[in-house]
């Protein structure tokens, strides 16, 4: 999605939240375009849910401002913000039918009966639950309940949709199908959406952009492609995807040369202010490492296979290359070729261009 024509919808300025002595959100700045799908990704306790709850209005920021569509909403109550929200544990009203739940916001807004009924059936069609009007929440499966919760959040045509780990209570299969459905509906309606999750695969697969959070801070904001391929901090590199970290020393900063286990490697990345002899952490994804020699992967290291894990379509091999350095790499499972054997010597190859320099 193009960012140069951006039409800013939500802006967070220096958002900070403290509970007693602990600061759970520190100086978060973010701009979200109209119609954009942004995920907040991070481990539990990183502050992502608190940021979402501040946007919803359940928490008041200790410092900073929230602007929606150019208007400062920092001190508005949740019921004045025109947002739709979906919670982790469904949170459907147990005393109301599916239709009652979806129509609740419409009733509060004073919409006429016929119009509300038409909107409810429109929403049921959208989530594929037409005919479920008269069911009660306890008569629905988890996935169905969460779809009703989504319809309820969208029925009053909110200006923004907030999703607080909406898939984490569901089974793996339903999780994938529902996330695709959420993304489809979001695109269809063009509604600005924030999706909180601790699951990197979820975030990578459905977001326009991802904000990766760690210990209350936004470590990186970028497209899934950027966040995965060009992580800006060690935390992001390790949290998003699997990552091999190699420890080495700077050999010659001007030629971007580093030394790992005695092997000189030229990398594409700028070494900045580092001097020769400084320790350095390099990262490489498993898919960028080959067992044996490989065209275009000019750097080689020798070691021994520590462990072989059969994962189905791929075989993950862990190779110790001396020192503390261990690399994981994936090879495709080929029934005609015997799998690597643990304990046997191995050569690995990769390209210096695929190495990332981690800022500690």
């Amino acid at each position: 999605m193009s960012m140069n024509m951006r039409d800013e919808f939500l802006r967070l300025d220096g958002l900070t939240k403290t509970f007693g002595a602990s600061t759970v959100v520190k100086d978060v700045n973010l701009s979200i375009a109209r119609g954009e799908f942004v995920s907040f990704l991070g481990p539990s306790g990183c502050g992502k849910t608190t940021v979402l709850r501040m946007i919803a209005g359940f928490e008041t920021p200790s410092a900073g401002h929230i602007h929606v569509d150019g208007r400062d909403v920092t001190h508005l109550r949740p019921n004045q913000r025109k947002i739709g929200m979906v919670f982790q544990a469904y949170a459907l009203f147990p005393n109301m039918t599916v239709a009652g739940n979806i129509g609740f916001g419409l009733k509060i807004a004073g919409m006429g009966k016929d119009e509300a009924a038409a909107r409810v059936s429109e929403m049921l069609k959208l989530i594929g639950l037409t005919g479920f009007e008269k069911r009660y929440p306890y008569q629905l499966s988890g996935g169905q309940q969460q779809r009703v919760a989504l319809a309820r959040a969208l029925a009053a045509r909110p200006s923004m949709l907030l999703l607080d780990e909406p898939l984490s209570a569901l089974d793996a299969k339903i999780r994938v199908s529902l996330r695709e459905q959420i993304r489809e509906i979001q695109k269809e309606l063009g509604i600005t959406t924030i999706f909180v999750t601790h699951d990197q695969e979820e975030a990578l697969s459905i977001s326009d952009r991802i904000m990766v959070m760690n210990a209350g801070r936004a470590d990186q904001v970028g497209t899934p492609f950027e966040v995965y391929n060009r992580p800006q901090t060690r935390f992001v590199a390790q949290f998003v995807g699997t990552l091999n970290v190699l420890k080495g020393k700077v050999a010659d900063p001007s030629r971007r040369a580093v030394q790992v286990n005695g092997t000189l490697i030229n990398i594409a990345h700028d070494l900045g202010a580092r001097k020769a002899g400084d320790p350095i952490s390099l990262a490489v994804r498993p898919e960028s490492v080959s067992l044996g020699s490989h065209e275009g992967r000019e750097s080689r290291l020798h070691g021994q296979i520590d462990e072989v894990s059969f994962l189905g379509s791929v075989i993950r091999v862990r190779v110790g290359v001396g020192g503390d350095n261990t690399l994981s790499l994936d090879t495709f499972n080929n029934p005609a070729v015997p799998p690597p054997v643990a304990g046997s010597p191995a050569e690995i190859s990769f390209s210096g261009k695929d190495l990332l320099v981690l800022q500690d």
Partner: protein
Amino acid sequence: MPAALRPNRIGEALASFGSAGILGVAPFLIFAIVFLIFPTLGLIGGAFVDKAGKLTLQNFVDLTQPTIVDAYVISIKVSAASAVLGALVGLILALAVGRGGLPSWIRSTVMTFSGVASNFAGIPLAFAFLATLGRLGLVTILLRTVFHFDIYRAGFNILSFSGLTITYLYFQIPLMVLIIMPAIDGLRNEWREAAETLGAGSWHYWRHIGLPVLWPSILGTLALLFANSFGAIATAYGLTGSSLNIVPILLYAQIRGDVLHNPNLGAALALGMIVITGLANVLYLVLRARAERWMR
């Protein structure tokens, strides 16, 4: 391999449980039949026969005599008033303590005290209220000497409908708090938050979600409170002796001295009580089942 460890022996041992199970439950069932069901059924049967042992409905016709009808009316009035007030005040108290953001020690103190007060019924409770609101009670005297307000001149009497109701509230309110608190704890925060994001204020939330969700529990507990005070006698007897004409006191006098001059009329009186407390309890169970269905 020791015999006890062989699989077939384990299977046999577990299978023998069926018969052992019946042996384990049998004493309980026999006890319940002999000391609960049989005497009650015998009493119910007694309501349908006359002094000569012949089948009759005359005892139920005789229930319509003014003393007995009066007793039922007063009993139902006291039970209904103490149940409704107890449920209302208990609900408010439970909401204040459970949802009002008060310190947690208050909640635990209230729950512990409720456990004590809901069991502090009977003779001692009557003594306590005589010492408080009797003619020489502390509150009566304080109101008269400090505020120059004589509650007895204003028509209050501890030995009356209003006095009995106030006294019953001392165990009815805590019972309501104890039973309704789990239901209040079952109100999930997300419901309020979801309602808020949908534009609802506090009033909307309670009107459309909070109270409707609690409603079966409230009505059910109301029925239980009614039955609880309808069958109670010790508190009333300790308070008023036999002067207040409520059904259990009338029945007590009948058992003691056959004041109705017809033991089978006493049985009919008892059957009337069972029917009323039974209906109230059935209502309680039905409504509780409905509340639990929602909470799944």
